[in-house]
């Protein structure tokens, strides 16, 4: 198990989120050395495991914890997803924002700090990949659009990814056309194909820096 008592923890749904954050933050001036990670990122093997009653509460109460950030996908509805997270946190943070603001949530209570960000941008429906697509569009908007069209056309030719997985298919299609085709998200951020300074990336980075005090 990772270092249990890191005072700053980021809770994410899965390994993709975990591998996106460090390179994104490093490209924005937050050093991320292997041996002294500024924030401990914990994955939960899927949203239901993270939302299971008791999990977030126990993390908020765990000894040595000072700052907790939670990043999850909106999927169908950002507000609904926020309410699900809020329900788990309200016991420890009674004054948590009733509605999710577009800048994400940051709240302090009794020396404990909580942050919540609903991918892609606290408003739209979607997921991590939706967010990453905006980073791609920043420098390659035509190619990104073309990849989208290709995905839609592929449907009519028998491609059987589900509707809800569109953004995942989309970004991976676009990635297939980058130098190092099919690179991991983190690599694409380091190489700049995914623009870490796009306006959407900057909004997330601002939330992160503010929450974790970098």
């Amino acid at each position: 198990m990772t270092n249990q008592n890191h005072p700053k923890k980021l809770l994410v749904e899965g390994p993709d989120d975990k591998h996106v954050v460090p390179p994104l933050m490093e490209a924005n001036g937050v050093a991320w050395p292997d041996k002294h990670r500024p924030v401990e990122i914990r994955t939960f093997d899927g949203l239901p495991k993270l939302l299971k009653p008791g999990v977030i509460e126990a993390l908020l109460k765990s000894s040595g914890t000072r700052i907790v950030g939670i990043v999850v996908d909106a999927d169908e509805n950002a507000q609904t997803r926020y309410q699900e997270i809020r329900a788990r946190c309200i016991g420890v943070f009674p004054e948590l924002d009733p509605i999710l603001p577009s800048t994400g949530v940051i709240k302090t209570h009794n020396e404990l700090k909580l942050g919540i960000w609903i991918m892609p941008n606290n408003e739209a429906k979607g997921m991590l990949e939706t967010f990453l697509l905006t980073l791609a569009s920043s420098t390659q908007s035509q190619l990104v659009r073309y990849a989208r069209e290709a995905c839609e056309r592929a449907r009519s030719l028998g491609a059987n990814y589900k509707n809800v997985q569109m953004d995942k298919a989309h970004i991976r299609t676009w990635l297939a056309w980058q130098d190092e085709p099919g690179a991991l998200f983190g690599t694409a951020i380091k190489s700049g194909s995914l623009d870490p300074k796009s306006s959407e990336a900057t909004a997330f980075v601002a939330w992160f820096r503010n929450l974790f005090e970098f």
Partner: protein
Amino acid sequence: MISDLVIEGFRGFERMELHELGRINLLVGTNNCGKTSILEAIRLLRGDRDPAAIVEILSSRGESMEPQRHGTSREPDVRYLFNGRSLELGRQLRITEDYAGQSRSLTMSIAERTPAKPEESSWGLLCDWQGARKTSFKVPLSLQGGLMPMPLPPRPESAATAIVVPANGLTAASAIRQFESLVLTPKEGIVVDALRIIEPDVERLATKGADWRLRDTHDRGGIIVKTSDCEEPLPIGSLGDGMWRMFGLALALASADGGVLLIDEVDSGLHFQVMERMWKLINETSRRLSVQVFATTHSRDAYESLAVIAREDVSEGSEITIQRINRAKGKSISFNEQEIIAAAEHGIEVR
């Protein structure tokens, strides 16, 4: 069942509140955070018919003084009960519980007293219990602030006092005495049933040949066990790891019937593999006898194994809690069953 506890001015606590208490409460926290003091506070609060508790609590920590008069017993040093460890008129501590919607409290204070003997000072320790059952008495203090011997009322049979299992376990003499007081009563069966949770082959227990030389040691002589798979009875110690500790716990649970059980260092003497069964014994027997349990531990294994029991236990309500004690915060951090299970599953540090 005690639902809330407030401790003021006692030992290292200016103020400490514990809320959302359940049937089994495991107290955790760093060394010296006051876990054992909380057990003592509950014992004192429940000790309106057990004034010897004050003496035992101070003596067990070595907090006593040479007597003024040579040849008499040591005097418990009362200032160690009070936060700040000083004695002056009016110095006070209070312990309050909420129990089934009713409040009960114990206030101990230094009050004036007319000395009846030359060794007595003009101060006394006033012990005042308020609630459904009121009791009050004043114990004389010696000229050096020690508790003078007081004539103790005999401990009544049905005294609803808190039962204590100390960290280093029972002495053989104590175990034998307790078992002999239960033998041939319905509680003997409860002790055997409790042991069967750990060792299903146990049939009967008896005391035999208790050697006076073992009296106050921690040797395990004097209790024998008949198991179904063995023709001859065996000394209880031969049954292996932790059986003696389990026996002590079973006896204590049976004695606590309907009341409160205080276990210091619940994991002491037990290998982590045995701990799940220990909690099973405590959980099932405490539920059966309506005993509320407060236990302390330093051990991660202790709360992770408690999580296993919490997961298997399908009854409703906040039966099992973990309370993290930190003196700097005036309130414990309370973990309910779901949070205990989550903490164990995800390696989250609760201590």
